């Protein structure tokens, strides 16, 4: 599903922020992505959501070499990816409903279908009576739930979330993690970047990708030995 082979990334003429990354994410897997600040989590995530192309190496997604795709094909790939950004990136001139409906509108779904799906999801994330509210008048937790709902509304094949439970209380956070888990069981590949060790321990059955100093390591459940991904594949 996702394959990184000797992938490196640098910004401009600066040093490589990610160097020689090698890993494969099989369809339907669930991974946490963790590592200290400045380890390259955001850079790796931006490559995963196709916001940035690697400066070297081979990156393939859904069986396609990303470097060889044209704009139309990249657009189709992006529509199969759902992203929860750390800073939510909600559109503040639009209602909560319209923010969540946006990916469906982009993919050209009929308005009747959009309304039904969005209303159902809003109820599920506990924002059923906030559909006309503007995001910048809502709490951080509510905004985060909108961001999550927007990312999952299209039932993406790959779900990427950057600190998705950061502003949520434990109960809501757990509920969202259960939603991700549920989506994962339905076949969605999930990658969650997180610092939250408590949360990761609660869901310790999932693999962890640990980034450190521009290198990636895989930690399997119950394993104590870090295994460099490059040597595994």
């Amino acid at each position, binding site marked *: 599903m996702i394959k990184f082979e000797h992938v490196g990334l640098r910004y401009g003429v600066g040093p490589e922020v990610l160097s020689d990354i090698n890993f494969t994410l099989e369809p339907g897997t669930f991974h946490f992505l963790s590592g200290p600040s400045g380890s390259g989590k955001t850079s790796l995530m931006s490559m995963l*959501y*196709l*916001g*940035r*192309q690697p400066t070297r190496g081979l990156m393939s997604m859904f069986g396609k070499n990303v470097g060889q795709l044209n*704009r*139309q094909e*990249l*657009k*189709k*790939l*992006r*529509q*199969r*990816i759902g*992203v929860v950004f750390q800073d939510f*990136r909600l*559109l*503040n*001139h*639009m*209602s909560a409903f*319209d923010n969540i409906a*946006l*990916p469906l*509108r*982009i*993919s050209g779904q009929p308005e009747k279908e959009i309304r039904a799906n969005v209303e159902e999801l809003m109820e599920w994330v506990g924002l059923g009576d906030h559909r*006309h*509210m*503007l995001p*910048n*008048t*809502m709490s951080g937790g509510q905004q985060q739930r909108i961001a999550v709902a927007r990312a999952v509304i299209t039932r993406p094949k790959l779900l990427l979330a950057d600190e998705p439970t950061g502003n949520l209380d434990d109960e809501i956070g757990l509920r969202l993690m259960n939603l991700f888990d549920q989506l994962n069981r339905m076949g969605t590949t999930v990658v969650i970047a997180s610092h939250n060790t408590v949360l990761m321990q609660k869901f310790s059955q999932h693999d962890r990708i640990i980034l450190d100093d521009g290198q990636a390591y895989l930690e399997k459940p119950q394993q104590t030995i870090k295994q460099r991904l490059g040597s595994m594949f």
Partner: protein
Amino acid sequence: MINFIKKDRSLGVAKEKRKYDLPLNKGSGGSFLKILMGLMTILAIFALSASFSLSEMTERWSSGLENKATVEIPAEDNKGNIIEQVVVDKIALDIESFLKGHPDVETAEIMRPQEIKDLVSPWLGNEITFENVPLPGIVSIKFKDDKEINYTILESRLKSFGEHVRLDTHGTWLADLLKFTGALNFAAILISTLIGITTVVAVAGAVQARMAVYDEELELLHLMGAGDRYIANQLQRYSFITCLQGSAIGAIIGLILIFIIGWLLKQRDISLLPDFNLSFVQIIILIILPFFIGLLAMVTARQTVLRELSKMP
């Protein structure tokens, strides 16, 4: 109190239905574009009206003087001696009689003294008395439509009635006048073209500025899988509506001004100036001008957006 509650309830609620994914209706950029398009349209209406009027005036002069000529019997001979009015009138009668018998001439008519006075009075004033002023004799000729006239032969025949007799075919001064009006017309078309170019540059600049302001929102849409055309459609729709609104207001003001100018010119009764009575077709062209400007803005916005988005990965 009731009003306060109503207001409070609406706090933080989206006030209108979603129109665009980008917050295009926020900020003052739209008002600036509307005002600019309004002013451009007023200028375009002036330039086009001038062009229409000049074309009509040229057509009127050309068709009015086609197949026509004038024979002038000056009131003084080539040496500057004043010729008696009786003699001038006699020569005029002889020439009229000769022309009426000419096979290529349809009509020949001596211009009455009052008509000559009416012609010269705008230059000499109405107060002047013509009793002691010798008036020239003038014979108007209309040639048959299908005849090729040899003016050299005709003029030499006319000179047999008097060496100082002149044949004026209007050709020379009409050609100069047509050149002049042609130059004015070209200037009007040039101004219209410049207005079009300015519109394109202004819209492209406004769209680029908007894209720079909303680059995060644009990136978000891009990452969600919005195609370039999806994004371009929104900005082109916004540009079309904004420019159409501004241009429509400009067109209304411009047309009102044109009609006021036309009315004022009519009051002054200046026959040499172009007639500002626009034809039905010309008025329709001026009315659809805002739609044309809107379309121009739409196409410009689309091309600008597609060019800018092509820089994204």
